């Protein structure tokens, strides 16, 4: 704690989240090896990297679903490596999931309310009798969610809909709402715009910017949409084979030849089209020979 305070005098603030040489293995597969980076408070930090690089695993490690085999994670200066997942949620680590993990048996509203779970105090007796605290707490929660989150994300028309009937894009938005209801200090979004077209991606980008501006929430996201990552982030971390191969401001990362080779590709439609035409001209016999 003291060191954090001491370093607070430095021009760069101490990182809100600090990942230090984190290693994670599944049997023989090393999903992460020695990953380290920091997330500055108030920043938008993006983690990018090829499929299977370990981005989601990294998120899972930060939020406590996986125990790292080595290394440490510090949040607000406190070592949280050994703290169980639910506790971390309570401390202010909110997140959304890559493969939508909404609770399909609940309405949108209940899904969002669930996000607040760790911050509520109702116990079984309160709940069974629904008097006093339970009643007050629920009313309070309801107002807060309606006024701050549902309005903000423009999902008022679906608040009573069961999530299973929503299209993919709306589900992603509800995921974000639920993560916001967790009152996070750091909001971790795993591929928030996957499966969205350009227009919907723009909406989501606006939400992310607004969340930071209005609520002062720090954002850590994994995303494959390079347009969005490069436009929004302050800091980009590139993973490959479980290792950080590059990090820095977007422009630096984009210029890194290794990142280009492993991850970005050409990124230019005309170039791509030319490549495709070329690919299409490969003689058919190549397949048979192999």
């Amino acid at each position, binding site marked *: 704690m003291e060191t954090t305070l001491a370093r607070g005098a430095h021009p760069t603030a101490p990182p809100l989240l600090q990942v230090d040489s984190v290693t994670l293995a599944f049997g023989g597969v090393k999903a992460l090896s020695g990953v380290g980076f920091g997330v500055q408070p108030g920043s938008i930090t993006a983690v990018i990297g090829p499929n299977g690089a370990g981005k*989601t695993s990294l998120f*899972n490690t930060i939020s406590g*679903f996986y125990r790292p085999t080595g290394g440490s994670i510090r949040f607000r200066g406190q070592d949280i490596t050994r703290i169980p997942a639910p506790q971390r949620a309570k401390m202010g680590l909110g997140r959304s*999931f*890559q*493969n939508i*993990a909404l609770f399909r048996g609940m309405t949108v509203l209940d899904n969002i309310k669930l996000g607040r779970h760790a911050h509520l105090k109702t116990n079984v007796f309160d709940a069974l009798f629904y008097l006093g605290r339970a009643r007050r707490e629920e009313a309070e929660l309801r107002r807060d969610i309606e006024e701050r989150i549902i309005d903000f994300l423009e999902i008022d028309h679906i608040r009573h809909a069961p999530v299973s009937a929503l299209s993919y894009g709306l589900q992603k938005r509800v995921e974000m709402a639920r993560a916001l209801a967790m009152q996070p200090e750091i909001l971790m979004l795993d591929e928030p715009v996957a499966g969205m077209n350009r227009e919907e991606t723009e909406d989501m980008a606006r939400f992310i910017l607004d969340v930071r501006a209005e609520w002062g929430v720090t954002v850590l996201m994994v995303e494959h949409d390079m347009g969005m990552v490069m436009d929004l982030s302050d800091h980009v971390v590139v993973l490959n084979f479980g290792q950080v191969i590059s990090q820095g401001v977007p422009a630096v990362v984009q210029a890194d030849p290794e990142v280009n080779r492993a991850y970005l590709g050409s990124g230019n439609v005309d170039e791509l089209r030319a490549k495709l035409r070329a690919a299409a001209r490969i003689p058919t016999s190549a397949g048979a020979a192999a």
Partner: protein
Amino acid sequence: MDWAYLFEISLTGIASGGLYALAALAFVMVYKATRVVNIAIGEMLMAGGYLFFSFAAMWALPLWLAIPAAVLACGLLGAVIERTMIRPLLGEPPISVFMVTVGLSSVLIGLVEMIWTADQRRLPEFMPTNPIMVGDAFLAPKVFWGAVIAAVFIAAVLLVFRYWRGGVALRATASDQAAAYSVGINVPRVFSLAWVASAMLAAISGIIVGSIGGISSSMGVFGLSVLVVVIVGGLDSVLGALVGGILIGLVEALAGAYLGGEYKLLATFVVLVVILMARPYGLFGTHEIERL
């Protein structure tokens, strides 16, 4: 320690475990392809036993005809069950289908009582009656031959799953029905096949079990031990059915011999819980893949 006694008891336990294994195999067939926990497995055995009884004792067919006829008839019953009760629930949660099989067991018991009355009955004797002696240890001939038949079928099924792509189709269907359709697997056929095969195995098992303990409309309780066996072995594992069957047979025999009859079930359930705590998917069951 009376080693001869221990040996004799264990031998018996292993052999009677073979009977469990065969019934468990019938259960596993259905689970493997359709993810249905068939709680009516005991009643399917019963149906097989009664069909055999009808053919052999009431219609007086010769044995070589009565047995296959009972097995085929039971297979037909399996097909009917699949077509009318299971297939309409394709895609519903497993617990619903589980409950359908609860209803099924009630229907089967009712039908048996309607057709054959609720009296206990004995099946005609058809197995060799010469006692089997292993050294000084005595093994009841029916149990021995039952175990041999069970072993033959389990080996056959293991081979089939090893070398026939139908095994893959079965597992693929269980894993994702829509995707199975989309790769050209005839999902309804897989369902029917699994149920027919399971019902036929159940019939064989029912004939053996019935010839040892007689048949009655409450014979379905045998299914309970079968459930324990498949859980211990792993719901979707053929090998698990074999190993689980033998293990449970052995545990029951030892508990019965050294502790007393009231400890038999208790011992098997304690074993069950201990194994599940160590291996939540049974000894050989497939682990569910859980990723966020």
